[in-house]
């Protein structure tokens, strides 16, 4: 036994890894999620808002990172719909508007058909200029956004009344896959206007470490990668999900399946490796 492990052919490990990832995908396994503080914080920030509060949802990602961030976008939209918040979508990435439309079709059109475009939600679309855009709209939104994504004049959109800058939103929700994204929102929106602008975000695993320094002052809550998405989904489902939630609201949790098993495998491997190592040492001593 020990001998086998000591000279373990690494192909066994490969096999284990393959199984660990493949089985959950094939069986579409789902596991309980425990929401960590950061996800809880995100949830609370949104959940404490009043009905009809304006919320800015900035979707700064592209299909490449859809796998990680799509679930967050869906969950955020769902949560806002449930809270009956006014949703203002925008994007700093050229393909962002598509992501926005996906979310709208997936959630609002499908499950909240009573919400009306222009009254309950609006898609402001893409503006080029990365952080430049943020710098402007924190003080003067209409300066840049004269029309919405469909080309309708901003002034003709009922829900745009009283919205002149980002500071008029009760909360900014950012989903980002890199530059320009959460970091820029923190630097140019949350930092200069600490009382005015609240910001929560969901981002890719690669970005998450870079954002930790901003927690919790500038960034009360953060969803890191698919794990964060899963936790947040769990919170939303718990409160609004009902008995059998639509699978599209469990994307994150579903994708978390392979992650989880694989992580447990990694942990097991590390432990195993060390046990072997210590046995080895003790044998040498003898």
């Amino acid at each position, binding site marked *: 036994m020990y001998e086998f492990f000591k000279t373990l052919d690494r192909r066994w490990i*490969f096999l284990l*890894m393959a199984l660990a990832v493949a089985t959950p995908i094939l069986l579409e396994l789902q596991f309980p999620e*425990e929401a*960590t503080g950061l996800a809880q914080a995100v949830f609370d920030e949104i959940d404490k808002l009043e009905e009809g509060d304006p919320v800015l949802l900035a979707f700064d990602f592209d299909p490449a990172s859809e796998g990680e961030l799509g679930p967050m976008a869906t969950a955020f939209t769902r949560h806002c719909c449930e809270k009956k918040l006014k949703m203002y979508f925008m994007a700093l990435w050229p393909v962002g508007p598509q992501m926005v439309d996906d979310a709208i079709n997936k959630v609002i059109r499908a499950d909240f058909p009573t919400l009306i475009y222009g009254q309950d939600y609006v898609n402001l679309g893409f503006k080029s200029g990365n952080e430049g855009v943020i710098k402007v709209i924190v003080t003067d939104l209409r300066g840049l956004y004269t029309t919405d994504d469909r080309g309708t004049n901003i002034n*003709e959109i009922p829900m745009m009344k009283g919205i002149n800058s980002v500071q008029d939103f009760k909360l900014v929700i950012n989903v980002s896959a890199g530059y320009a994204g959460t970091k820029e929102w923190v630097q140019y929106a949350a930092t200069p206007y600490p009382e005015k602008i609240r910001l929560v975000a969901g981002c890719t695993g690669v970005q998450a470490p870079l954002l*930790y320094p901003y927690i919790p002052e500038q960034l009360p809550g953060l969803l890191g990668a698919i794990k964060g998405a899963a936790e947040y989904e769990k919170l939303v489902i718990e409160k609004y999900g009902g008995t059998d939630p639509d699978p599209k609201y469990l994307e994150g949790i579903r994708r978390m399946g392979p992650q*989880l098993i694989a992580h447990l495998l990694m942990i097991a*491997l590390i432990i*195993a490796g*060390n046990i072997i190592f210590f046995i080895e040492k003790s044998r040498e001593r003898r």
Partner: protein
Amino acid sequence: MKRTVPLLITAIGGFVLIVAYFIPATESWGEVAAIWFDVLASVAFILGGGNLLRVHLQKASDRKPGWGYSVITLLAFILMLFVGLTKWGAPPAVNQEFYGETFAELAPASLPDGLVATVEGRLPQRQDHRWLPASVRVQFSHDPLAGTISFRGWMRPNQRNDLLSYKETLEWRCAVERLYTKSRESSLGGRASYYADHRSLSFRGRMSAEDRDALLKISGDSQWTATVNSIYERSQRVTSVDIPGLPPTLRLPDDLAGAANLDSQRGRLEITGPMTAAQREALGRNWQMFPLARPLDSAHRAALLDELRGLGPITAEQETAFHKTLDGSWTASLLRTTLEEAGKGQEQDKTNCEMFAELQAGITDIKLKKPPGPDVPLTEAHVGIINRFTEGEFEDLVAFVAAMKGAGDFTSRQEDAFWTFVEKNPTVGERDREIAVRLLREGPLNAAQRDRLLSEMRAQVAWRKGVGELFVAAHDVKYPWSGEYRAQGTPFWWLYEYAFKPLTATMFAMLAFYVASAAFRAFRAKNLEATLLLGTAFIILLGRTFAGVWLTAWLPDAVSGLRIEKLTVLIMQVFNTAGSRAIMIGIALGIASTSLKVLLGVDRSYLGSAEE
């Protein structure tokens, strides 16, 4: 020579850039150098690729072991290179094709003098001596003595904007505006235009005999006449496409009959001259052929549902889905608010000339916009009409607009708003398709049910496709090479999508396995350092599973700092930040001194030997 010159080049190149970094005028040199580097790197591909070819050809020719794979590499390489460089099968770029316009070669010089518009005005001086915008350089001219500026040909909006942005003063901008209007007088409502960069005279849509004569009147110059005539002849070409699967009852709406004509018996659509994008839209999706879906009240819904039931079973889930779908449709109130909003008075931009006039009138605080006009609220009568419209009256939408106008003030902006509203909301076919999709997601539908729900949409799609085909067929390609080299559907794209991407992505995915084996092998508590390494990794990994959270969730708030997620944050926030900062500072120093050594020639190993 062979060694000292390169050393000099290195040193000079480097130090020049360092100094340039601190001089405002030259701060951009760094970027320029970067572009030059890219150029050199792509030229170097010839060396790399040549070497690759040589190596594999050699391997193949002297039958070294595994030479077969070399052959495959060669084939893959040459194939990809060929289809990529030739843009094989790539359609021309949409925005560069000027769909619906007919071009004819004509040099700017040979634009007749009849097309030179002149107004009073002076070309202002710029301190930074910026050149005139490239778009107008050949057509714009000015005469400082006479104090006039003139433009040869019809000025296009983008050219006007370029000229406007050249200087901010109202005097100049007003002059440009006047020049713009003046130059476009003879442009037949903007249908005729001249593209200097394309060296072409252009006409949008079909040129009628009157249009031709109007243009010919401008000048008798033979070349001009020839050009105009060539356009005229080419814009008389008749194109037609066959559209299978069209219901023979379809009729082209009268207001579109001019654009094209449809023989619905033979299912053939025909057009004379090119089809403009506007015509394409108007034809492809018009309310006469494919009516707007009105909201269904419960009665209508029940009827539709029974009809479907009559054709086959409908489950309970499907029924709820059915209603959910229909709830999504627009409502009378939405239409009303849309029209009301459109009725609101808008403040409009002033023209530069208006502002210039104010300036000369000595007004001290000039505003950019005019005060908004009065609001035009909807009357009771209007609301009534809207409600009847919602319930399904007014098959003919024009009649609706007329009724609205009849019932009180109804501005053109409101009318436009209405038409966009019609465009944005689904037709009957689209609505039924949506229903079909939703029902199918809930459960099965039999062929009959599908046909009931989809036939309308099928016709609509077939028609739109047909129009699209005609749109393309009626157009003669101007720049076959302008296409995107990796446009979808091209062989290059196929190789990228189905060979390049999966291969590289899978290679990337292999990391998952290697990470595992590395963790097993290398993360052993050999010494303090190793223990720290694996300890941290362990905590982070654990923190990413519910197990970890759950392990520490019981900790009281007093020591909540030890909860795994807090621990993670602490590690990332403090330790990770500290470590990576030190590393980055060190790296910066290392890079600085290495660069310096290179520049000073202390380290010249990259330069090769003195001999050849």
